[in-house]
């Protein structure tokens, strides 16, 4: 059997996402403060925390937990993070439908769906200095690692590294959408907040999946 985790037991991954976002609340706002309005960590933390309160005990399955997160972001949070991350997580959840186990194949589909979902709702492109700039290279890197024969865990590591590289590459980009886009050239030279939170989310997911495979 190829490396995988049981979907119905993996709702805790969403709890870990919430913890990661809350732990980085200040840092994410700080980054947004440079070329945005300094509230990215606040927004994310508000939405994720609200979702956490709805997860219930015992924890639901991973797709149910992702859908709860998505719905909370879309219905309660609003803003731009609501729809963007809302679609990211619901697109991921959709790919888990009908599955019992999350393996590399399924994960690759989740990443692609997440990327397409965010791209469509936000009408942004790779290179626009958004969370797509962490999401896209991560998606590609995972695909390539897996296709080139690395195992699921190794491919997750490759993805995590690519997400980080993508995040850091936003420093040299000029924002084309969102608040920072009005800065033009002045938006160059600092990290993008959304790419930073996206990288954090992907790395947290990767870490959580790996732990569950070992455990």
């Amino acid at each position: 059997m190829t490396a995988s985790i049981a979907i119905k037991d993996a709702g805790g991954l969403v709890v870990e996402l919430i913890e990661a976002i809350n732990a980085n609340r200040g840092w994410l706002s700080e980054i947004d403060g440079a070329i945005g309005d300094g509230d990215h960590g606040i927004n994310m933390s508000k939405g994720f925390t609200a979702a956490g309160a709805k997860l219930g005990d015992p924890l639901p399955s991973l797709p149910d937990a992702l859908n709860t997160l998505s719905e909370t972001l879309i219905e309660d949070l609003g803003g731009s993070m609501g729809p963007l991350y809302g679609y990211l997580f619901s697109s991921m959840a959709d790919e888990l439908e009908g599955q019992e186990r999350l393996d590399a194949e399924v994960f690759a589909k989740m990443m692609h769906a997440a990327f397409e979902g965010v791209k469509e709702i936000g009408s942004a492109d790779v290179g626009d200095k958004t969370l797509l700039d962490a999401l896209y290279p991560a998606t590609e890197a995972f695909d390539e690692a897996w296709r080139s024969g690395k195992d699921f865990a190794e491919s997750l590591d490759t993805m995590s590294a690519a997400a980080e590289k993508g995040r850091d590459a936003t420093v040299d980009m000029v924002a084309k959408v969102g608040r920072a886009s009005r800065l033009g050239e002045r938006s160059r030279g600092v990290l993008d907040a959304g790419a930073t939170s996206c990288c954090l989310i992907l790395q947290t997911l990767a870490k959580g999946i790996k732990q569950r495979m070992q455990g």
Partner: protein
Amino acid sequence: MKKFLNKPEDFVDEMLEGIYRAHPEVTFTDGDMRCFVTAKPVPGKVGIVTGGGSGHLPLFLGYVGKNMLDGAGVGGVFQSPSSDQLLNVTKYVDQGAGVLYLYGNYTGDIMNFDMAGELAELDDIETATVVGNDDVASSVVGEEHKRRGVAGIFFLYKVAGAAAAQMKPLAEVKRLTEKAKSQVRTMGVALSPCIVPEVGKPSFQIGDDEMEIGMGIHGEPGISRKALEPVDAVVEEMASKIFAEQSYEKGDEVAILMNGLGATPLEELYIAYRRLGQLLDEKEVKIRHVWLGEFATSMEMAGFSISIMKLDDELEPLVAAEVDTPFFKHFAG
């Protein structure tokens, strides 16, 4: 952060509580205070729904009232309301004639209104959309679709509201609102930042003798930052940017909105208006209407914006129509 508030996270909801207490003409739907609607929807009328982040009073909800808007989704400070909230407002406001979405050009708002519109369609509610983008400082000519929506949406509200009050159908309300939109241009200037309560510190830094021309209403940077000049020179620079966009010629008629961003005293707005009036006099352009005060703010930001709308025989009576909302009142004629 020197603000009158309790917990920063309660800023929006406590503000709403105050508003509902003060103004029984408005209420909320679906048990959610942020789904702000008129208490007296007019049967058969096209509904006009707006929405956007908080921190801009009287934008957005302040224009819900007689002959103007019917509902507003209320977001967090500088955050779009959610699609769900907008959908609930839409359902309440719809009186069978459809609903016009009229809001400013910001990513979050576009995404959420679009989603709400799709959901409304599933409920057989027809929606149409006009997105305000009057801020000439935020993009060049030819790329108007990228421009921010700022105070000039006030005129779009007036036109849409008056047209709907005349029981015109949705397509016609939309046509007139689009027409109004094509005639409105805004330029702003700021002297000081504002503070988002949950952030707790100023949105940007600016020198003691500096101004930022073309600033957005969330503190987005403008065209240029430079030493504060006499207000006559500031107004000349702002007006010249607007005049460069459209022709303003002898005999043309306009409406003006001189909008304070929050902390700038009325006295200063009138001093600024004096110069704008002189400039339009020189062009022999007739000022048919002028509104001066706070219409779209950024909490405690100091600064102001100038919006100019060109009028024609179709638009003028709509702009002139009587309006009675909790935050804005206008007697006709």
